[in-house]
């Protein structure tokens, strides 16, 4: 802990200037809004370019973060001055705790208020840079997809503008170093998601969905504001005393929560309030209802919303200030946390809902909700790394699935998303889309060796290893359900007989019209040429027929790239392989998970905003009590015992489960059983129309009840709309109407009448008599004086001269008299 032992951490241009990643999309948004329509590609190129630049900076940041972490572990820094001076450096040897790698902070003072300084800038650590790179990458691919997919849309430019700002909001949020900036990014996303979901607002259902999404998330946002305030009041004094920071600083909040001096009430209620925000944003039960409705937006929006932005924001918030939840919900000591319960409920209820959806995008939406439940379950039970890992892998395969659904509707089913009416048998017509869909489905369901297997099984495994056996079985059941509903969706879309639009007809069918999610209301002034664009996209000029066909290159390339990552992303952290190939294969564990090592407060430079730009690259002192935080299941160190005086922790010592072969086999077997059951059912029910199964819900009362219960989404929407909204909104609306009519209008009217009377009096008395009188009087006086003096103007020079001299003489006489007397 001596300063002499400090290791210089490497930093770099990309890490220090990561704030550019957030700024560039915002500038891109302004440029698109301002000049987009005049550009050759209607603004799409600005969006693509801004995301591409952001991605380059983000990837540079990833490389430099890896270097920085390595420099902390080995003491070797590329081009290090310290090494040049030949000093020996302490190295993290086996069994010793690896030093905490401090984030790279670049921030400016945004505004000041009553002695508090609010910064804006970037704070880059492993989690932030992972998500920044992920968001930039996914957004870029989705934008490439959108170039073709929304071509010809009447608000094409606005679409790209909103997409750019949307991912900008997410980037601003994930790089934030204080809660205020986090709220800023959070709200930018809330606003732009409203714009994007309601992109085709001419149809009432779409604008209703946008409003629903906005208001449902707003309900949670109240929790964010309240939680931030609670945490601020709890943490501020401690942060000022110990870290020269304030209670909005995220690092200070983390350290405060783990300091052992934090008030448990503040922690508990702050965590509850913040988690309510996450419930709203991440679509957790019971506020998940907005997510499926958000499918009203264009498919690229759904894809982006559900993979790497927006819904992940809630999970990110929990992961970001994890110590608050860790301490507030006693996760470290095995408490059954609010987060874990909500997550587990969400997994099951959303997976069940996915069975009764006919809309392919809604199946995927509920799948997202369910997968977010896994992430929350992981976070709620101490499996931080697997949850973050699941964010990472889920982004790829869920994005790929949505883009596949978009591709199917774009080229296969004539803009319908109804699996039962307009799809079926598309696997031969759309081989690339089908292959990508299958790969992503396997990844989603967690089949070895696809991406989802590594992350989802990690979560389930860790949940079990942390002592939550029941929740582990919930997770396994969810995995089986996932396999089943995805089989159903795959079967309905790609197998069986083509139906409706997929069979090449259905263009003029009335039912196709009414089910077209992406069709504008009849009677719109100009045709929203998306239907026309489907027949005229330039990339596959060979096929202009109306029947289903494969999509164009611009649509397929992003899908294929994402499908590739759906296969390979899991190898970023293949924990079961670590025993064979060493811990080096666990890239995310090494570089993303913050180390649970205390560091002395002297080494922490307050990362609050300074007087000017400040680049913070503090040195790190390895803790003297190293070794205790390491080693899996030890229940001491950060997150369990308070750090020594003068030292702070930023991350609790989460445990990692030892992968067991039997467990892996068990989960794979459960998934396999799920697949087998679902395939058998699909073939029998949808393929052969087996009499024993068809109409079962009509014949069996219990099943019908269950079906209706699911079909009505547990009556949650009805509850919200008819009970809560009605109960709250109607009396309020009536009261507001009464107040409006009786109080405000009456007041306004009275004031109006009074003012009018006063005005009349003023007009009659003051304006007419006084003001006009004065004006007219002065005119009259001047006129009369002029007439009176007219006679003197004879025109005779001699007379003028006489007057002049006479007046001069009188003046002279007066002057003389005055002076003499």
């Amino acid at each position, binding site marked *: 802990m001596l300063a002499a032992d400090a290791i210089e951490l490497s930093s770099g241009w990309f890490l220090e200037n990561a704030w550019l990643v957030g700024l560039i999309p915002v500038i891109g948004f302004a440029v698109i809004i301002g000049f987009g329509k005049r550009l050759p590609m209607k603004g799409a190129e600005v969006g693509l370019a801004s995301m591409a630049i952001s991605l380059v900076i983000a990837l540079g940041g990833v490389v430099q973060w890896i270097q920085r972490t390595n420099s902390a572990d080995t003491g070797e820094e590329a081009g290090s001055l310290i090494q040049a001076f030949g000093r020996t450096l302490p190295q993290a040897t086996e069994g010793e705790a690896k030093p905490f790698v401090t984030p790279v902070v670049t921030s400016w003072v945004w505004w000041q208020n009553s002695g508090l300084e609010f910064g804006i800038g970037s704070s880059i650590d492993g989690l932030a840079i992972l998500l920044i790179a992920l968001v930039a990458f996914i957004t870029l691919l989705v934008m490439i997809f959108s170039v073709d997919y929304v071509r010809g849309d009447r608000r094409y430019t606005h679409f790209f503008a909103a997409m750019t700002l949307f991912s900008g909001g997410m980037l601003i949020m994930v790089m934030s170093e204080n809660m205020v900036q986090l709220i800023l990014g959070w709200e930018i996303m809330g606003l732009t998601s409203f714009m994007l979901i309601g992109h085709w607002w001419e149809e009432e259902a779409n604008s209703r969905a946008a409003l629903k999404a906005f208001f449902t998330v707003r309900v949670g946002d109240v929790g964010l504001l309240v939680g931030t305030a609670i945490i601020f009041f709890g943490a501020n004094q401690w942060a000022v005393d110990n870290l020269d920071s304030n209670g909005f600083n995220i690092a200070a909040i983390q350290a405060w929560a783990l300091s052992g001096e934090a008030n448990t009430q503040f922690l508990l209620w702050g965590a509850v309030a913040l988690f309510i925000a996450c419930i709203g944003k991440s679509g957790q039960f019971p506020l998940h209802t907005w997510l499926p409705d958000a499918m009203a937006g264009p498919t690229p929006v759904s894809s982006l919303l559900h993979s790497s932005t927006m819904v992940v924001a809630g999970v990110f918030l929990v992961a970001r200030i994890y110590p608050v939840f860790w301490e507030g919900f006693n996760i470290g000591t095995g408490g059954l946390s609010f987060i874990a319960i909500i997550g587990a409920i969400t997994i099951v209820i959303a997976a069940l809902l996915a069975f009764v959806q006919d809309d392919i995008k809604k199946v995927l939406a509920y799948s997202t909700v369910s997968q977010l439940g896994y992430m929350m379950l992981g976070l709620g039970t101490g499996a931080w790394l697997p949850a973050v890992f699941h964010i990472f892998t889920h982004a790829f395969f869920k994005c790929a699935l949505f883009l596949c659904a978009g591709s199917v509707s774009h080229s296969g089913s004539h803009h319908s998303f109804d699996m039962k009416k307009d799809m079926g048998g598309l696997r031969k017509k759309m081989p690339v889309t089908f292959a990508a869909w299958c790969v992503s489905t396997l990844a989603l369901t967690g089949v070895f060796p696809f991406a989802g297997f590594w992350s989802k099984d990690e979560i389930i495994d860790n949940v079990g290893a942390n002592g939550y056996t029941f929740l582990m079985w919930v997770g396994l059941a969810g995995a089986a359900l996932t396999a089943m509903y995805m089989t159903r969706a795959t079967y309905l879309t790609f197998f069986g007989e083509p139906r409706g639009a997929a069979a090449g007809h259905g263009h003029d069918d009335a039912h196709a019209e009414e089910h077209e999610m992406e069709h504008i209301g009849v009677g719109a002034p100009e045709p929203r040429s998306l239907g026309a664009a489907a027949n005229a996209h330039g990339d596959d000029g060979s096929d202009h027929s109306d029947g289903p066909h494969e999509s164009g290159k611009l649509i397929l390339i992003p899908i294929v790239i994402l499908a590739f990552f759906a296969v390979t992303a899991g190898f970023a952290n293949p924990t079961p392989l670590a025993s064979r190939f060493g811990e080096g294969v666990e890239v995310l564990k090494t570089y993303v998970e913050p180390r649970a090592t205390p560091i002395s407060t002297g080494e922490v430079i307050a990362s609050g905003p300074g007087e000017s730009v400040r680049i913070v690259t503090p040195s790190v002192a390895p803790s003297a009590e190293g070794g205790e935080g390491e080693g899996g299941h030890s229940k001491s160190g950060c997150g369990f015992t308070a750090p020594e005086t003068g030292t702070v922790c930023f991350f609790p010592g989460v445990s990692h489960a030892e992968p067991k072969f039997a467990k892996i086999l068990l989960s794979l077997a459960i998934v396999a059983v799920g697949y087998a059951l679902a395939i058998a059912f699909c073939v029998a029910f949808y393929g052969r129309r087996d009499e024993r199964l068809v109409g079962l819900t009509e014949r069996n009362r219990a099943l019908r009840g269950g079906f209706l219960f699911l079909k009505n989404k547990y009556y949650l929407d009805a509850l919200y709309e008819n009970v809560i909204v009605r109960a709250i909104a109607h009396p309020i609306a009536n009261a507001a109407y009464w107040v409006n009519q009786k109080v405000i209008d009456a007041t306004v009217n009275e004031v109006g009448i009074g003012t009018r009377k006063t005005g009349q009096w003023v007009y009659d008395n003051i304006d007419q008599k006084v003001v006009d009188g004065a004006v007219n009087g002065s005119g009259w006086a001047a006129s009369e004086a002029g007439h009176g003096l*007219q006679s*003197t*103007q*004879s*025109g*005779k*020079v*001699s007379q003028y*001269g*006489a007057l002049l*001299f006479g007046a001069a003489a009188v003046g002279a006489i007066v002057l003389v008299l005055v002076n003499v007397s």
Partner: protein
Amino acid sequence: MLAVNFLLLAAALFSIGVYGVIARRNAVMVLMSIELILNAVTLNLVAFALMNGAIDGQVFALFVIAIAAAEVGVGLAMVLMIYRNRKSIALDELSEMKG
């Protein structure tokens, strides 16, 4: 006192000038009367300069002479133009300025 004589002379000249301006019909005579008035004033200035033993008044008198020359030039030009237009320079016939 010597200066009083100057002042009396100036007053007499001024009165003659004023009479000429008011009583004469001929524009040239009026101009000449104005010259008389100016000269009376100039004489006053010189007289006061003598009384006070300062040279300011004399300098000022020189300026007045110069300005008077210019004024007469302008005045005679106007009289000439009036004559050309009306074949007369009788001031009592000129009443266009009547209000």
